[in-house]
Every structure is written in C-alpha cells, then in structure tokens.
C-alpha cells in the first residue's frame, strides 16, 4: 500500500432525488495525516463523511481504505476496520449514561475479549473532561457536553481513522484548545484524523493539508497557507 492512499476517495458522487450533493469528489489521505475539510454550509462535507463512514452509499465512485474497497461495505464493518466518526448534530444513546454510551463502541467496534471496559471508558471520559458526568443520563447533558461525548465515543472505537465532524461548534476558546490538544495527542499515537470545522484558527493550526468543498465539488486542496491565499475559496465563503 502506498503511503499516500490510506484513505482513497475516488470520484465519489451522491444524489438525493434531483439534488446533486457530491460531484466526483476525490481525496487521498496519508496514514497518520492531519487533514482538514472545510467549505460553506451545505457544501457536502457531512455527506462526504457519511459516504466514507457508510451511513450513506455513494451513487458513483469508489472508496478504498488501506487498499481495501469499502464502497459497498455496511457502516459497522467499516467501523470494525478502523473508521470512526463523530456526528455534527450529536446522536447520543439517550437511554444510557455517558459511560454506557462508550461501552457500545468498546464492545462492538473491536474484536477480542473485553476486560476493564468500565475503566477504559472512564479513562476516555477523563480525557475529554466528562469524568464527572460519567453516570449522568446522556440525554441530560448540555449541548457542549454532548459534543464531547460524541468525540469520546469515536475515540472508544480505537479507530485508525477518526473523522471529527464539527466537534468544536459552540465551545469556548479554552475548550476549543482542549479538544485540539486531544486531537493532536490522538494523532501522535498514530491515528489519522479528518477534521471538519468552521473555526478557522483550529483548522489552520491543526491541518497538514486542507480540502475545500463548495456546492458538492472540491474546489481547492493544499497546505493551510495555500488555502488561505486561494481566491476561489475566498469567493466561495464570501460570495461573488
């Protein structure tokens, strides 16, 4: 496997009835990379992530993960292969406590025996700052705590590739830095990370490379400073 193609998204297309959500979007992400995905609202970022994670099936194109064609695999299989994602709008398991929310990925996303499930879950909750809320019903958490739980849950799946979908929305500056620190740590442990964010300073600081989507198409890709200087990107965000 070439180091270039840890995740190889080849010309993925997705339609919803008459609406074209993604048009031939291609990305090649290296193992261990920190990759940013940005674009105005409605540009198709979450749809692309849904196609990668398996929540949606692409209408066209292929997706390869570690040289393996996962285009038609159901989502749970992709998770077991090592892809985990958080949801932009948090989707906690509402009848469970924060701790029990983490039991699901620990018990299902990984093969093999599971000892010390509770300890491990507590550890992860501690990392995102939710240790005190471990036994609180996830439905009773605040919006921000739910976002952190989303990230913790994805972490609990021990992924090789983690997609963080707007995990920092609504957080204070200090909290943004906290999450950023966690993501850097995870990356140092070897986890490839795709970050979708609107908080520009976080994306710019975090990403080694950034891709920009607009109206379902990739309009730019490159290093953060290249993206900042790109006129087409500026126009996409600010309009003509």
């Amino acid at each position, binding site marked *: 496997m070439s180091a270039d193609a840890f995740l190889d998204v080849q010309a993925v297309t997705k339609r919803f009835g008459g609406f074209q959500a993604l048009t031939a979007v291609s990305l090649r992400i290296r193992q261990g990379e920190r990759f940013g995905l940005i674009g105005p609202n409605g540009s198709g970022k979450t749809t692309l992530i849904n196609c990668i994670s398996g929540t949606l099936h692409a209408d066209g194109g292929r997706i390869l993960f570690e040289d393996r064609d996962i285009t038609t695999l159901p989502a749970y299989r992709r998770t077991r292969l090592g892809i985990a994602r958080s949801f932009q709008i948090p*989707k906690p398991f509402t009848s469970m406590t924060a701790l029990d929310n983490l039991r*699901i990925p620990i018990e299902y996303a990984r093969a093999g025996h599971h000892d010390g499930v509770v300890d491990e879950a507590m550890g992860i909750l501690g990392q995102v700052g939710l240790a005190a809320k471990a036994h609180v019903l996830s439905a009773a958490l605040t919006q921000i705590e739910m976002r952190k739980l989303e990230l913790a849950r994805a972490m609990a799946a021990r992924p090789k590739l983690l997609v963080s979908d707007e995990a920092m929305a609504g957080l204070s500056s200090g909290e943004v830095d906290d999450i950023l620190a966690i993501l850097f740590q995870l990356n140092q442990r070897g986890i490839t990370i795709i970050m979708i964010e609107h908080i520009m300073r976080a994306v710019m600081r975090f990403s080694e490379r950034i891709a920009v989507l607009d109206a379902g198409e990739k309009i730019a890709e490159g290093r953060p400073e290249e993206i900042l200087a790109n006129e087409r990107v500026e126009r996409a965000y600010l309009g003509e």
Partner: protein
Amino acid sequence: MHGGRFALVAIAVVAAGLLVAKLGFNQYYYFAAYVVLQYVVLATAWNILGGYTGYVNFGTPAFFALGAYTAVVLIKSMKAPLLAQLVAGAAVSGVLGLAIGYLTLRLRGVFFSIATLALAVVLQTMFVNWEYTGGARGFSVARPATAPLVGNYVQFLFVVMLALAVVAVATARWIERSWIGRGLAAIRDNEEAAECMGVPTLRLKLVATTVSGLLMGLAGAPFPYYVTFVEPTSVFDLNYAVNSLAMPMIGGTSTWMGPVVGAVLLGTAQQVATVTISSALNLLLVGVILVAFVILAPEGIVGLVRRLARRGRS
C-alpha cells in the same frame, strides 16, 4: 435481581405452580390463569422487539396463530405429543419473524410495523382458505385424556404455560443484561449512531424479530389443546394484537419486569371484567388506557415506580 436469585425464584414459581395444579381448585381458575400466563409470554416476546429494540409489531396474532396452527397440523397429521408441538410452533413462528424481518428491516421502522399489520390480515386469509386445518369452519381437537404429573389436562396446560412464561422471562432478562441487549438499546436510541459504532444493526434486529416470533409461536402452540376448537376468527383475535402491545406499554418497556407487571395486572383485570362487561367494552377500555399511558406515562408503571423511588432516596 441477581442471576442466582432469579433462577431460584423461577424454580420456586414453577414448583408452586405444580402444587397449585395438584391441589385441584375450581377449573375456572386454571383456565383464567392460563390466559394471564399466555399474555406474560406474548407481552414479554413483544417487548424484546418493541421495548428493547424500538420496532413496533402490530401483528402478534400472526405469530400466535401460526404457532397454534402448526400444532393443529402436527396433531392432525401424526398425533404428535405436546413437546413436539411446542418446538415446531416456536420454530415456524421464529422463521416467520426472520422472514418478515429480512424483508422489511432494511427500511424505516414504520414499514416493518405496517408489514406486520398486513401480515396478520394475509395469514388469516390463508388459513380461512386452507381446508386441511378446517378453513373458516374450524378444527376440533380432542384434549388428551390423561395428563402427566397432575390431575387433568387443563391443570397440566396451566403448568406448561407457567413454565413457558418462566422461559420467556428468563430469555428476555438474559438478552436485556447481555451485550446483545445493549446493542439493541443502542439501535433503539439511535440506529444510525449504533451502526457507526460497530453494531451490526440488521443482524441484531433479525435476532430480535426471530426470538420474538419464536416466543409468540411458543405461546400459541398449546392453544389448540386449551381451547379444543381452533378457528381463524378466535385465533387471530384483535385482543392479542392490542394486549401484547398495551401490557408492555403500561407495565414498562425498558425491562423484563414491565411486561410481566402489565400482563398480570391487565390480564387479571380483563379476566375479572369479562364476567361483568362485554368483551368489546373491555377492549375499548384497554385502548383508552393504552393511549393514556402512551401520552402521560410513557415509562410505564415500572418506570414510574423507579422514578418515585429515586426521588424518595434523594
């Protein structure tokens, strides 16, 4: 309730049932208790798919009737013993659960529910047209003259149904506490997230529909001996559809105790009521209570009790 303690209680319950059967009370009580216990099985079975997994089955009569008619076929074709009828009834209904699940569970939950509604209607039509099992006229079944262990066959059926109820509750309890139960709860709470967290949602849902159907078929298999005359209208009765749904909703859907509480309370109340009010009025009341609970007390009685207990503690 701890595993060991539960097993002890289960054995004690069956032993008590045997004793009650041997004591030979008024036959009516065994008939009535049989119905209540049957509902414990049906409500528990329904809840595995409904309360644990979040998929609503409106077609309980289909699975129940299939269990009953499988027993009829076995009785007519080879005079098979009750045990064989139980196994076959459970197996056939289990397969039906698997089949209907396979056809509809990849779609939204509401289509599964509508399919179960349609299923009951279609199956009833089938049996009305099948002469082998009596068609619309029905089929007479002779109850065996002697019964093992106890005085007469009705008392024996009571013990059998008691044992089946214990089996059903034990199954539900085991599922609830296992990793399967946690997976089902994840599916119920948020299926999309569950799938992305590695839960094989389709497979687990199929397990739930199969087990649920199996238990319902199990409840239906002794029915021919109990009622001695099997015909489509009574075996596909609306009662089964609404009660198997109302009892868990009223008792509480999140734990195995809910359907048991609901079945015992509602079932007993209905047995008492049918003596005094018409069966249709009885059904109407169940409908009203169901709607009231769904709107006002969605956690059911068990949930309410737990909430009050928690408040009392703090």
